[in-house]
């Protein structure tokens, strides 16, 4: 056992080495693999403890040279004496272990009508993407999110093997009935929807996270116009009958638009002066333009607070005064930047049934 732990190869030089070996044997030293090189040279293996005793027994008559060290214990001790190596090994191990906890690739299988990019994006919304820390993934939430976004999916399996994530899905057929596609009262969230304009205005930016964009920057859109459609036509990439020609999603996006507002505010033309009671009429004097503007601005702020959403920004303001007998009518034109997108549920088959009814 000592030999396995640590052994030393030595060379003994001197005359009558057999005498030293005899002495070593009598002392109970464990010498192994003794090889005669010449009459005055011998190679052998010995444990470090026995080497000390052998050197003592050899005295000045023999020259003992250590040639090499072997053994597990020796290797470990040598390794522990080199801190740089230890740090290097720890770093490599840490790197390997830590890397094994992060997602490397995502494989999506089983999709037909839904594009792979949409499914990947849906996973990304649930926090599953390349480089995600695997233990932190909420698998149930991710599956639930996929069901929510794509109601046509009937089965989802989200598993991982090593650093690879597999998303296996099964879609329902193309000939779904309206009842199947329409949201039930119990699960209202699982519905398809468009995003429509809730105000008329000029599109400033439009970006869709899901769905198909139907308007461009600079377009003037009317209230109720579909801006992001939840109905997405697709072209089949394989020649197969019954392959879906479209798919539906719950649209999601952000639309900013510049909306003009025309408002009219009235205010008194005259203000009371600081005269005596006998001279009231004479003490009234007309409001200055500055006073009118201050009052109008106050009225606009009040109106914006009540009517506009929080994230709305008033970009431009134009005031036009018209003086009447005792009042001043102020026409205000505002240009407001705000989000105009609003979800509108898609009722599949509704239009056709109506037209056939007509």
């Amino acid at each position, binding site marked *: 056992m000592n030999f396995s732990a640590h052994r030393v190869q030595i060379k003994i030089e001197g005359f009558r080495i*057999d005498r030293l*070996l005899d002495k070593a*044997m009598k002392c109970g030293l464990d*010498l*192994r693999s003794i090889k005669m090189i010449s009459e005055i040279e*011998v190679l052998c293996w010995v444990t470090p403890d026995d080497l000390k005793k052998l050197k003592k027994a050899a005295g000045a008559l023999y020259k003992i040279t250590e040639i090499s060290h072997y053994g597990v214990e020796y290797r470990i001790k040598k390794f522990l004496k080199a801190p740089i190596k230890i740090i290097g090994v720890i770093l490599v191990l840490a790197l390997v272990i830590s890397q094994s906890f992060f997602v490397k690739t995502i494989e999506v299988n089983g999709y037909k009508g839904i594009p792979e990019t949409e499914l990947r994006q849906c996973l990304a919304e649930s926090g599953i993407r390349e480089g995600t820390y695997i233990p932190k993934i909420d698998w149930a939430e991710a599956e639930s999110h996929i069901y929510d976004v794509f109601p046509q999916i009937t089965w989802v399996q989200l598993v991982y093997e090593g650093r690879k994530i597999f998303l296996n899905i099964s879609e329902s057929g193309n000939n779904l009935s309206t009842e199947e596609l329409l949201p039930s009262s119990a699960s209202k969230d699982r519905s398809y929807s468009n995003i429509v304009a809730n105000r008329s205005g000029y599109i400033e930016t439009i970006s869709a996270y899901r769905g198909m964009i139907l308007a461009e920057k600079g377009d003037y859109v009317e209230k109720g116009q579909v801006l992001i459609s939840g109905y997405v036509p697709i072209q089949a990439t394989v020649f197969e009958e019954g392959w879906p020609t479209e798919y539906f999603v719950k649209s999601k996006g952000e639309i900013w638009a510049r909306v003009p507002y025309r408002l009219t505010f009235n205010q008194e033309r005259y203000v009371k002066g600081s005269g005596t009671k006998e001279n009231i009429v004479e003490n009234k004097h007309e409001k200055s333009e500055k006073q009118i503007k201050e009052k109008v601005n106050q009225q606009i702020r009040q109106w914006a607070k009540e009517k506009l959403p929080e994230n709305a920004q008033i970009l431009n303001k134009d005031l036009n005064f018209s003086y009447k007998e005792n009042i001043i009518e102020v026409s205000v034109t505002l240009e407001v930047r705000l989000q105009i997108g609003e979800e509108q549920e898609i009722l599949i088959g509704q239009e056709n049934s109506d037209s056939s009814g007509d």
Partner: protein
Amino acid sequence: MNLIEEMAYDLDFKEPKIIVSEKLCVIENVDAIVMIGENSLTVETGKKYVTVKGSGFVIKEIFEGRLLIEGTIQGIEFFRTQSADKNRRI
């Protein structure tokens, strides 16, 4: 060899006990190493000297009176320790 003879043989620590093949030789009851050369090795047991002749010897183990030799064994000789008038060769 009956049982008593066998026991007597096993318990006799003065006689050399040798296991030998063409490439290996084990000598037990070694008291001392008398001489080690490139082509021969002589050891002393209680009553006899034993000389192993051959080439390429490597003493694999030398511990507690037991000697294990590897190499090409060509012959083994026994000598009396007290007088050299009688020897035996195998």
